[in-house]
């Protein structure tokens, strides 16, 4: 398959893996965080850890939208869906995320009208087709998905569709990276920078990582060869004592980002003063809400959203895993109470979550007994 097979070429992959082994200094440890959940998924799906030297450890970052969404927001959304006049729409990833009331799928089986969509535009189309119902789009995601939500809202406004609103849970990646760097238990040596997010925001926003914290960042693509090349670039920087932002994913990521997408976001969204991140707590200016001009399409302005706060199940250690302090399998619930089929924490839900990725692709003993 064109544009994919080239980046999975066994010979080139072997060469990149050899180069990593050559560059890695055996007398030290490398702890590299891949920020983005898409990278986490690729790393497990392609078994890349098998190709790395033992002293190179990949820490899975917070870039999985479902994983950082606090449980209370899920319950807020599910409460809205209990109204028979409402059609709640969400990306497939959201459907199995448990709140206290259950998952959206369970609510759906009990009769709530909750539908999976692949794009917010599909939700808008549903609103057009069902003028007597209120269609709510449960928006999640980083700067990757925020522009499509923004464009959908612009279209809704232009078309004057009144029965469509967005329950906005969009977050931004840079404050989360800063929170991790500020954390006292931070022991990272460098970052594999987000790929899809960077197609929108570009590479410049990561410069503080290099300048203030002295850690290298390499923005990376998602294919095996992309990720390995990014690791080569990180190792070269470390060996040469450099800390810079570099762009491995040049074929897709422009240094300055996507101006049109950024403009759409700026027109529709503004920063919330603070927002709760699952596992990381409240982070100031880390999430988006709709501007007052879009209040008519803002679920939080049009409906009563209770703002439920739910503490994570005590035994679950999602926060520690999310910050890279614990590995997925070190959590007490991993593979026992918490599995991809019956997830307790969100990291086990999304295929981009570190726990689900680890469970699905690496974890071996559990599969014998199945459930």
């Amino acid at each position, binding site marked *: *398959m064109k544009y994919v097979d080239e980046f*999975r070429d066994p010979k080139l*992959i072997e060469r990149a893996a050899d180069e990593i082994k050559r560059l890695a200094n055996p007398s030290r440890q490398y702890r590299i965080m891949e920020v983005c959940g898409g990278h986490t998924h690729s790393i497990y799906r392609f078994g890349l850890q*098998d190709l790395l030297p033992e002293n190179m450890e990949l820490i899975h970052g917070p870039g999985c939208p479902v994983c950082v969404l606090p449980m209370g927001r899920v319950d807020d959304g599910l409460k809205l869906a209990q109204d028979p006049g409402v059609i709640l729409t969400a990306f497939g990833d959201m459907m199995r995320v448990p709140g206290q009331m259950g998952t959206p799928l369970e609510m759906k*089986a*009990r009769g709530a009208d909750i539908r999976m969509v692949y794009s917010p535009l599909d939700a808008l189309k549903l609103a057009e087709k069902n003028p007597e119902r209120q269609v709510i789009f449960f928006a999640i995601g980083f700067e990757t998905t925020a522009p499509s939500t923004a464009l959908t809202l612009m279209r809704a406004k232009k078309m004057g569709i009144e029965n469509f609103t967005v329950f906005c849970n969009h977050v931004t990646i840079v404050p989360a990276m800063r929170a991790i760097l500020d954390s006292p238990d931070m022991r990272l040596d460098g970052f594999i920078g987000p790929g899809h997010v960077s197609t929108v925001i570009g590479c410049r926003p990561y410069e503080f990582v290099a300048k203030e914290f002295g850690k290298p960042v390499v923005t990376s693509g998602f294919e095996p060869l992309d990720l390995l090349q990014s690791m080569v670039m990180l190792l070269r920087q470390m060996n040469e004592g450099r800390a810079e932002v570099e762009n491995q994913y040049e074929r897709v990521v422009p240094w300055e980002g996507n101006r049109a997408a950024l403009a759409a976001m700026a027109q529709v969204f503004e920063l919330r003063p603070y927002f709760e991140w699952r596992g990381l707590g409240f982070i100031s200016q880390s999430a988006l809400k709709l501007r007052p001009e879009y209040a008519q399409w803002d679920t939080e302005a049009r409906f009563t959203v209770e703002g439920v706060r739910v503490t994570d199940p005590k035994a679950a250690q999602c926060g520690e895993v999310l910050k890279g302090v614990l590995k997925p399998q070190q959590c007490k619930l991993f593979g026992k109470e918490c599995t*991809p089929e019956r997830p307790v924490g969100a990291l086990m839900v999304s295929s981009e979550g570190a726990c689900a990725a680890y469970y699905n692709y690496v*974890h071996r003993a559990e599969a014998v007994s*199945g459930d």
Partner: protein
Amino acid sequence: MTKPSIVRFKDAQIELAHGAGGKASRRLVEGLIAPILGNPSLDDAAQLNLNGSSLAFTADSFVVKPLRFPGGSIGELAVNGTVNDLAVSGAKPIALLSTLILEAGLSAQVLQEELEAIQQAAQIAGVQVVGGDTKVVEHGKADGLYISTSGIGLVDSRVNLAASSVRPGDQVLLSGAIGDHGITILLARGELDLEADLKSDTRSVWPFVEALIGMAAPGLRWMRDPTRGGVATSLNELARDARLAIKLYEDQIPIRDEVRGACEILGLDPLHIANEGQFIAIIAPEYAETALEALRAVSGGAEARLVGEVGESPAGVVYSQTGYGSSRIVDMLVGDPLPRIC
């Protein structure tokens, strides 16, 4: 020891995932249906021994949406699905019963077309539709048409298929490209702005099984048609039942670019996508090449491949090896990415 673990059904209600063929389906069947019906060895097809000959007996139901799709329709699926359950039990399909559940308001034209599809598929598969039943439910209760078929077949005395006869070193034979049916249905629903030149693979696999039995019966250990839940789910069931490991060679698995592309875009694994005209056979190593040649010699069998090998450990696990020396676990399907695929 019969089963490595006792499965309990603790779910409070039925969800679509219970019909998806993956983990939840297994829990429902092994944790609720089989214990209550009092038969621990419920299977897709049962074997009944009568006066010295062995009969395979099976039933399947079809709720696919939409009713027609590129490459087939619900009527054709209803025949081939049941025929294939018999075939992979090593049984030559003989006769079918067909039950139609019709929704008031269904166009007579559509019904006629589906009856013709049933008749035609039965003719091609060499089975007779010998009876059935028809019920009508209120408008809004059945999405047009549901079909349930049951089938009976004569088990070939030369084969003895069982997970327990699978041994380390056995080869995994796959009859052709995977994922065509599931992706075709997904695209046929028109909910995604994706198009591809793809059609369902629905067909009777009996001619292939017959050829395999003819050439390699003593080496034939186990067969399954990987419908809902895909190849990954079928092989996980085998790995678990046989308490052995199954290694797949990722670069040997035949997958069309259209299927790969759709899966890349949608974040699906082709190994989890449903097939309606393929089967997996586990073959003793000394018969593997003969078996492969036998399949390839049948019209429509050119894409058959040896795609993996049975090993001792890690027991109960299916894993896939990439062309560049890394490996990953291939788990059963969890949840339901594509409801009502057949």
